[in-house]
């Protein structure tokens, strides 16, 4: 160097000074489990598919979605989205409309004819799936992906189970159901319709199945004894909806009363309205807050003219007249009879008091049944090796989404069983708690957009006639995702480091800390919007 000694220095020479030695704590990148993923009964990687949807790559998003769930257009309509209840954004403004985006992706896939992934290489093993509801279909899909042959046996005339016979068409258009079911069948499935399996062991032998997945659902409407006159027309909701689904609706008359407080009660009441009932009244013994039905469903039902008599029980049903007793909440919040009676006009009473499973096919088998359901291990296997059970027959919440999740887990359990491997659920990351987020960085929805957004969100959770999201709105909604717990490459850490000690790898490869220079100040951690960096004590 011919420049003046010490007065003039060549640029960037300080890189020789490794200030990383100052550090007592080091930042490390982590991946935490987003609450939406955590809450999803189907085990969807919601945040990941939203990530792709955010950039408008809907096919990539859909492909990640169907890694877990082959029925997004259906779930985008019927799922009660616990993901949204868990969403951290609730504490910023409102939850991300995950369900609506899922539906958008599902519909887009159907419209563009995207196909599910090809089946895996033939394993030479066969699995008997009993019941073609969401659990059975989900299991079928995942088993095919693993390369196992599937024989799908369904007692009804058509596939879909409760999705077809329990959920009214205004919530789930049959064209959507058919299309998503058909797409699974395209993977190559042996289907046997109209065949009720009576003996599980015999059927296993008959179909030369190496394993069985039992997913017959809960098809029996629960009855209670209500003093009633001979002329009183009573029907359980499951039967009622099933008949409607088969285009053979019973004649209920103009005044229909539905007894119960679950979603099925609402479906029954709303269906009755559509069938011409001038009034459909739900009688429920507790108050609105205690109603097990989902709030949106209640809202929609009320909007359609369904009336609800909360805090009421049915005392007696004599043809055309129903006597109900008013209840009052006691100090503990439980309803107690008041003795106050009231009459209602009623041509028919629909009982929506819950469903039971028909497990007669297990009689004589060694499969253990307890409290009307089949206890299963984590792999969804019953006491009997090779026999798995899921959906409504397994102890769990009885929703289509849970069933889809069961189907997936059972398929993995079966795959492990067939491969003589032990089943292990993948390790779950710690939960990405709201407290880890720096929500400052998330954009507020622009003011001009908010009324529109609210309208859209209203639509998304409404019934079919309202329609799905436009692409722009789906994109907008996807972009509301906070990416809790997982780096989404916002460059904050790269930018806010006073020591240039964050290396940007780019192109989806995120970042690395340059520990040669990182002094451990922790700004990157503090300013990471999604909590994907944490400080750990320096190893000494």
């Amino acid at each position, binding site marked *: 160097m*011919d*420049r*003046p*000694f*010490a*007065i*003039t*220095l*060549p*640029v960037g020479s300080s890189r020789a000074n490794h200030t990383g030695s100052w550090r007592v704590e080091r930042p490390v990148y982590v991946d935490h489990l987003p609450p939406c993923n955590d809450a999803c009964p189907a085990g969807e990687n919601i945040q990941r598919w939203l990530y792709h949807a955010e950039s408008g790559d809907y096919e990539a998003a859909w492909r990640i979605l169907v890694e877990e769930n082959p029925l997004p257009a259906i779930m985008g309509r019927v799922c009660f989205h616990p993901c949204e209840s868990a969403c951290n954004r609730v504490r910023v403004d409102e939850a991300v409309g995950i369900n609506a985006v899922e539906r958008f992706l599902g519909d887009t896939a159907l419209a563009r004819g995207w196909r599910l992934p090809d089946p895996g290489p033939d394993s030479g093993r066969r699995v008997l799936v009993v019941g073609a509801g969401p659990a059975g279909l989900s299991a079928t899909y995942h088993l095919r992906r693993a390369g196992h042959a599937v024989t799908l046996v369904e007692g009804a005339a058509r596939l879909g189970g409760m999705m077809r016979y329990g959920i009214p068409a205004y919530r789930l258009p049959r064209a959507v159901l058919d299309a998503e079911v058909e797409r699974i069948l395209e993977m190559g499935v042996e289907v046997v319709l109209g065949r009720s399996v009576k003996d599980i062991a015999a059927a296993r032998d008959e179909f030369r199945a190496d394993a069985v997945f039992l997913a017959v659902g809960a098809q029996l409407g629960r009855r209670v004894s209500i003093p009633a006159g001979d002329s009183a027309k009573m029907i359980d909701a499951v039967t009622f909806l099933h008949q409607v689904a088969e285009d053979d609706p019973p004649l209920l008359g103009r005044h229909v009363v539905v007894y119960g407080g679950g979603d099925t009660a609402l479906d029954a009441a709303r269906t009755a309205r559509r069938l011409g009932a001038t009034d459909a009244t739900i009688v429920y013994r507790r108050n609105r807050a205690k109603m097990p039905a989902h709030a949106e469903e209640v809202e929609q039902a009320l909007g359609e003219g369904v009336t609800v008599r909360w805090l009421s029980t049915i005392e007696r049903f004599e043809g055309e007249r129903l006597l109900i007793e008013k209840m009052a909440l006691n100090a503990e919040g439980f309803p107690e009879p008041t003795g106050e009676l009231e009459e209602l006009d009623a041509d028919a009473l629909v009982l929506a008091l819950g469903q039971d499973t028909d497990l007669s096919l297990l009689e004589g088998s060694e499969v253990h049944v307890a409290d009307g359901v089949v206890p299963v291990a984590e792999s969804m296997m019953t006491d009997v090796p090779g026999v798995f059970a899921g959906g409504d027959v397994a102890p769990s919440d009885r929703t289509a989404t849970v069933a889809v999740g069961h189907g997936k887990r059972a398929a993995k359990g079966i795959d492990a069983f067939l491969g003589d491997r032990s089943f292990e659920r993948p390790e779950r990351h710690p939960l990405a708690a709201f407290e880890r987020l720096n929500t400052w960085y998330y954009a507020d929805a622009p003011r001009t957009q908010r009324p529109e957004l609210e309208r859209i969100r209203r639509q998304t959770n409404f019934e079919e006639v309202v329609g799905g999201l436009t692409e722009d709105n789906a994109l907008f909604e996807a972009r509301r995702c906070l990416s809790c717990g997982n780096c989404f490459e916002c460059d904050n850490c790269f930018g806010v480091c006073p020591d240039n000690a964050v290396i940007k790898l780019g192109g989806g490869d995120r970042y690395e800390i340059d520990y040669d220079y990182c002094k451990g100040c922790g700004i990157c951690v503090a300013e990471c919007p999604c909590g994907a960096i944490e400080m750990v004590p320096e190893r000494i």
Partner: protein
Amino acid sequence: MLQQLEGSRAVAETVARCRPEVVCAYPISPQTHIIEAIGAMVKDGRLAPCEFINVESEYAAMSVSIGASAAGARAYTATASQGLLFMIEAVYNAAGLGLPVVMTLANRAIGAPINIWNDHSDAMAVRDAGWIQLFAETNQEAADLHVQAFRLAETLSVPVMVCMDGFILTHAVEAVDLIDQAVVDSFLPPYEPRQVLDPDDPVSIGAMVGPEAFEEVRYLAHLRQLDALELIPSVAEEFAALTGRASGGLLHPYRLDDAETVIVAMGSVLGTIKDAVDARRATGERVGVLGVTTFRPFPVAAVADALAGARRVIVVEKAFSLGMGGVLATDVATASPASGPELATVVAGLGGRPITRRDVEGVLGRSAQGTLPRLSFLNLDEDVVARERARMAASRRSGPFAENVLRDLAAGGANR
């Protein structure tokens, strides 16, 4: 071309021919005429390209010069007295950074008490700053020294201060042969910096240097000063070859051959002293004069050589270090030959007090008689001093002594 013009004007014209690219101006007597004239030349386009900047202080004047020089421009400014002290931090800084700024110092006393007239206190206050300090004897030399100053500064990467006596030279109208532009251009090539702020080849200039290298940096700067001792005479010779004028160099000896008594001095007073020496020589006294042109770096060897034959050396200087004595004299003593001449310091001309030929002859006379003390103050009014001392002894609140002295003088010494 020989012209009859004011010293400041001669310097301004000469500096302009050195093609400075950035000139800073802040008014302070007695240098102001110089930058006024340059400003006019820039404004009317005679001097171009050149940025003439009216700064808000001398501190800024030197700072702007530092920035300009570091960016590769030839930078010039002028100041005096308080102005130099106000910029002193930047004066040191320019030298420390090795930036070849050239500055005219129109020498003036330093207050308090405020005094606008000539002496050398200002130049002495920055003698350790790392600048080359050249003292002009005449306006001709003042003008010529600026051309040499740019050449020296840029060759060595050391700033150069051309010192000329305020008013006595800056405001004197006398004949000066202004150097031709072509001669300057042949003598002074465009500035090629050793370090420069260039976005295409970025460097950091002005790093913090700790104990591990500071001494080396300072020593390197000292070596550059020693290099200057070699370069200054050769540049002066080259200049003489082009112009026929003996401006610059380390020393100006006058009638030193066989001189037993040598007066050492700097600046314009040398003319008066030469007249006095001639007068004494006419009476047969063996006296001579040694003019010091290059004060920093101090030409120790050359001074020793020049004084080798002297028996008495009298340093007449326009500054002194309070509580010690002569400043130039101290350097001369350091340089004095082994023969050990008798050394006397005469502090003279402070705050513009005239030094006449008669005064100098008086000094020579006292020296010859052996009555010249080692340190004396020329024409000091001992009575005034004694009376103020008495006032101070008599009363605690004797008041400001400068004002007391003025009042005393105005009253014709009756104010006892």
